[in-house]
């Protein structure tokens, strides 16, 4: 594990009642690099990201961002800490009651007190960067297709030029062509900003495209991590089973156990 990581998780654990979701996660992401965490449904990927953001408080372990311990932050300190982040949610999580441009500009207006007119201009520019015209800014999220919502979610994630961006299942539910478009946009945006990123996905095409390093999570533990180019020759039975999508192997789905 790299000790000089921008984002470092050490022995992070989280249980919900008797269910242990994170069982001692250890990862390190250097500044400006992209880590993709792969793994099946219910293995703890989303919980891991939410513990870093402070949406879920870990039971134990250490999470440092730029060398600063963040698990104990609260109130204004946490709000300040969150200004450094952008996040693209699996379902885009756009605010239904706000037009698209205000969704994109939300973090600027509410979090950074940017004047609305200035924030609107930035939002229109960010929409342009993800391939959407200014006319889309006036629409409401319900009027957009799934792919367009993901683009707007991406524009919102990068609107404030964050130093860290999380992508939660960025291509889930999209057709392969739109998924590739989103992957390209993610790579472009991340390169432009020089941001440190963690993505979680079970789409291997997406992982190969956007990752510098890949980590595999299973039952709340990182069972393998290495450079993205090494994923096909990892020699790890969990990784091999996952990337080839085989039912047989060490990973047994809950439905097969019953």
């Amino acid at each position, binding site marked *: 594990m790299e000790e000089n990581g921008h984002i470092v998780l050490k022995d992070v654990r989280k249980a919900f009642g008797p269910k242990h979701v994170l069982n001692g996660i250890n990862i390190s992401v250097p500044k400006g690099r992209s880590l993709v965490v792969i793994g099946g449904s219910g293995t703890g990927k989303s919980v891991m990201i*939410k513990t870093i*953001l*402070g*949406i879920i408080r870990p039971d134990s372990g250490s999470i440092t961002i730029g060398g600063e311990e963040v698990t104990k932050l609260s109130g204004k300190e946490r*709000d*300040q800490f*969150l*200004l450094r*982040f*952008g*996040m693209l*949610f*699996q*379902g885009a*999580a*756009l*605010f*239904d009651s706000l037009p698209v441009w205000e969704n994109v500009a*939300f*973090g600027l207006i*509410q*979090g*950074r007190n940017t004047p609305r007119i200035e924030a609107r201009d930035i939002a229109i520019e960010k929409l342009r960067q993800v391939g959407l015209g200014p006319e889309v800014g006036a629409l409401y999220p319900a009027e957009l297709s799934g792919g367009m919502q993901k683009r707007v979610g991406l524009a*919102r994630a990068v609107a404030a030029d964050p130093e860290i961006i*999380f992508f939660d299942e960025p291509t889930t539910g999209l057709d392969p062509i739109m998924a590739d478009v989103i992957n390209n946009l993610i790579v472009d945006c991340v390169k432009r900003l020089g941001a440190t990123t963690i993505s979680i996905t079970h789409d291997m095409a997406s992982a190969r495209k956007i990752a510098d390093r890949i980590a595999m999570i299973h039952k709340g533990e990182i069972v393998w991590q290495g450079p993205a180019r090494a994923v096909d020759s990892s020699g790890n039975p969990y990784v091999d089973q996952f990337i080839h999508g085989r039912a047989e192997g060490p990973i047994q789905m809950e439905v097969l156990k019953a």
Partner: protein
Amino acid sequence: MNFLANLGRVVLALLAEIGRIVIFLKDALLQGLTPTIYVRQILEQMLRIGYNSLPVVGLTAFFTGGALALQIYLGGSRFNAESLVSTIVALGITRELGPVLAGLMVAGRVGASIAAELGTMRVTEQIDALTTLATNPFKYLVGPRIVAGVITLPILVGIADTIGIMGGYIVGTRSLGFNSFAYIKNTVDFLHLDDVTSGLIKAAVFGFIITLMGCYHGFNSKGGAQGVGRATTNAVVSSAILILAANFALTSLLFSE
């Protein structure tokens, strides 16, 4: 033995729920009602809670005032007390029926809507998205709704009181043969400021209960569409029960000698 075990489980679940509501109340007060204040959100919620509830609250008050006048007239005729119609309608509406019926109607309309909206935001990760955008959901979502509820319910009840008394007046003068001037004079002479303010105080408390319960159940909903539906039902039921309980407690408190 099974009965006792089941009873124990129910009591424990109830206590746990009360504990969760108290913790939510603490967060709502300490986080939601302290700066930063989202004025735009408060005004928007006042419009949704207050202005949009006017038709349903107004109609309820009008028909209740009319029905009350008829009942008092018919009941009072048994002991020659028909002349009390205007006074009892005014007292009944301002002290009890105005705030309670408006509270229950708003609980059904607004409490359900708040729970459904926040519940959907919860299950579609919009509340998590707010957090990642450095915006405290208690300040942005809960605080403005509670402030709007506490401000607008007394205004709504003030309007409901007026419409309810008008309902009684119309029935009294058109159907029951009361003299218009005498009806208004009796209403004004026997109605005290305390009667109105006690109702408005109740309304503010009911506004707090409705918005708090709507936010609590919406905020904690889980499990997709079914969870949102459950949150909506729970918000309305818990608001209605708490309004009736609070009404009894406030009546005891405000009118104790």
